[in-house]
């Protein structure tokens, strides 16, 4: 825990100095880009998940700093339902593209667009205007019981030897499921999938001894991990997380390169929003994202910043690349034709 604090302090210091200079640039750009007639009313940041959750916290922190840098009022609105489906459909089909509605969403939207939208909208109906952060899905194991010291490799071996005994928490129809599926296909292991409504619920079940492996994000298990009730054992990212230096990646543990599942959080507006307003909204978010305080807050939550997306000029292209890679996965696994 102490290591984390020092790391955070160093990181913040590193980011602070050049960031301060960048802040002034960002603020100047913001003033330059502001359209005359906009905004005249509060801007709505739509979050498609319930209040208090990881996405909601991200959005509220962002709103706090955007308000600080740009002086326009922001109202964070939760449009929940259908595990995000209702909110995504609203943003893509009903929200007026006048710049007053900004969606703070995650790449989970792509799954909804490709698998569940039934042709009514596609992910290109939502245009990204700013990248926030990324969060890698992490496997978490118990600190009590027969599995308490096992690594991912050992647990997978157990699942191969005794199929149908290892209980793994999952969230049906999403990357939680896909990661388990990949592991099972590649290693021949067979686990018991226990469905939950979110990663957090699965981690709580793990702490209570009701499942053996849970999947979630750092912000969801950090409190329990620090207290020694659970321990992270594998990260589904391309490299180790800076604050979980001792936790191997799933690729390291199991070999190969395909165990990469992460949440990308970004802001969008409905297609067709006026270009000047889009540019202004994007600039406002960029200004906030350069604020070292906001960066520090985000880092505390255990996110990382994907270098492919932090450059605004390449952000949209790379996001689309990720989206198409996900589509390829769906086609390969038979979920899409």
């Amino acid at each position, binding site marked *: 825990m102490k290591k984390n604090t020092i790391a955070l302090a160093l990181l913040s210091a590193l980011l602070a100095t050049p960031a301060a200079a960048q802040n002034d640039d960002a603020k100047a750009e913001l003033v330059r880009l502001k359209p005359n007639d906009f905004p005249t009313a509060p801007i709505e940041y739509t979050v498609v998940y*319930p*209040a*208090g*959750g990881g996405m*909601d*916290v991200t959005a*509220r*922190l962002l*709103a*706090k700093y955007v308000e600080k840098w740009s002086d326009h009022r922001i109202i*964070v*609105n*939760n*449009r*929940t*339902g*259908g*595990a995000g*489906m*209702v909110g995504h*459909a*609203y943003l893509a089909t009903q929200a007026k593209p006048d710049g007053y509605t900004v969606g703070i969403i995650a790449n989970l939207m792509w799954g909804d667009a490709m698998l*569940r939208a*039934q042709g009514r909208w596609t992910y290109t109906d939502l245009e990204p205007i700013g990248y926030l952060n990324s969060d890698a899905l992490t496997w978490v194991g118990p600190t009590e019981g027969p599995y308490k010291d096992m690594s991912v490799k050992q647990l997978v071996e157990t699942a191969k030897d005794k199929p*149908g*005994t290892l*209980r793994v928490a999952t969230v*049906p*129809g*999403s990357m939680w499921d896909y990661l388990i599926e990949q592991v099972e296909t590649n290693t021949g292991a067979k686990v*018991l*999938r*226990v*469905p*939950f*409504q979110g990663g*957090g*619920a699965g981690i*709580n*079940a793990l*702490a*209570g*001894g*009701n*499942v053996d492996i849970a999947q979630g994000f750092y*912000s969801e298990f*950090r*409190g*329990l991990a*620090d*207290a020694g*009730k659970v321990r992270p054992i594998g990260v589904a990212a391309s490299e180790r997380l800076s604050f979980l230096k001792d936790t191997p990646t799933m690729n390291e543990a199991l070999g190969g390169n395909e165990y990469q599942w992460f949440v990308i959080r970004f802001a969008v507006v409905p297609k067709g929003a006026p270009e000047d307003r889009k540019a202004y909204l994007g600039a406002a978010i960029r200004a906030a994202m350069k604020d070292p305080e906001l960066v520090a*807050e985000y880092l*505390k*939550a255990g996110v990382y910043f994907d270098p492919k997306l932090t450059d605004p000029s390449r952000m949209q292209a790379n996001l689309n690349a990720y989206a198409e890679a996900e589509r390829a996965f769906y086609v390969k696994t038979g979920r899409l034709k």
Partner: protein
Amino acid sequence: MEAIGGLLTGFGVILTLDNLFVCFLGSMIGTLVGVLPGVGPLAALALLLPITFTMTPVGGMVMLASIFYGAMYGGSTTSILLNIPGEAASVVTCLDGHQMAKQGRAGAALGIAAIGSFVAGTLGVIVMTFFAPTIATVAIRFGPPENFALMVLGIVCTLFMITGSPVKGALMVALGFLAAAVGIDVVNGRERFTFGSVDLSAGIELLAVVIGLFGVTEVLNNVEKVVKSTLVAERIRGLWPTVADWRASWRPMLRGSGLGFLLGLVPGGGPVTASFMSYALEKRLSAHPDGFGKGAIEGVAGPESANNAAVAGSIIPVLSLGIPSNAVTALLLGALVIHGVQPGPLFITQRPDLFWGIVASMYVGNVLLLVLNLPLVGLWVQFLRIPYRVLFPIVLLLSIVGVYSANKNVFDLWVMLGFGVAGYVLSKLKYDLAPFVIAFVLAPLLEQSLRQSLAMSPDGAMIFVQRPGTALMLVSSAILVALMVRRKPKGGS
């Protein structure tokens, strides 16, 4: 005893002018939110969360927590006066509370509700003070099989609440299950009964159902009669509970406190479930169960205590472990994070000022709320004197805003209207509406925990026997059903 030390720290933190003011403000807002039909603590907390950013973490959390339990105080007011629930946890209070109001005893009902809430809230916080970490460690072991057994117990309790024809009651319970199935099946992500509608894929909103079935139906029933200018024709007989009321109420209050506290601890439990089960428990234990639904004060004392105790119960896992048991506590958790606090088992040792400050604020808040609410009884009762022709449009307008505030979706207003008309028609044909709502609330939890239990069990259904807590609860349910069947020839039709 370190708990006493912690508590003293907490009082030291809370008894400053700033924090006291914030506690008071939150309690008032919570009461107001509870009174307004439809707008519940979840909506209020979501709306007011940004305001807490400018406060210190202690101030912000104290305010949010006080809104939560304040709403449980206020929720009974419209239930009793207008037969319209302030939020879902106050639905059962309508059943007997409003009947009491019609008999001119609104004051007594409101008084008992306030006092029951105070007793339960305070008892809950006392238990929290001394036993929070221990309780939390036990509560975390509550897994899907235990949840399932608890929900079965809940459904069995629902059967006790059925008045009138058991066939119609069973039909309403089954309808509740059916309505609850609309939406996405959380266990495998598939859509059920949505027929391609995005709105339906989110499921049917509980608040719209509750306000429709109990609010709109009530208004429709009332405007049909040429209502004498005011809603309650009876002269209002005194504002305070009588000695007889006290004697009848004190045991339900204690039982409600205990039951509510326990139900607050478990995931998916909380004030709503606690209020239903307390009502059913009181009816089961009462010497005159037929009096329920006609103005039995036990039907107010028990549930109102239960929903307040459930608040204390549900805050324990959040503060002790960083684990939320329902949507409101999930929001409180998010608020902690935004304030830069890391929730989790180490929270109590890392930030004792914050932990004990919140606990101490609950003592203070409960006292404040009692002091606020008792004198207000006299004021609320005056509302009954407003001519109904003025009252009902305002109530409907507030209901519309309240329902809309849940998901910001106009579709919910149609749901409200639809259930209102359906409830109106069904009540004319002597169908009981409460069992539908309870089944609607419990069914998803029951189904989910059953399927989760089976998914996590290598031995299939044996898991229900292998785990002691589960087995115990299931056996209790079976016994209760047997008792019920045996009692029937004496009681129902």
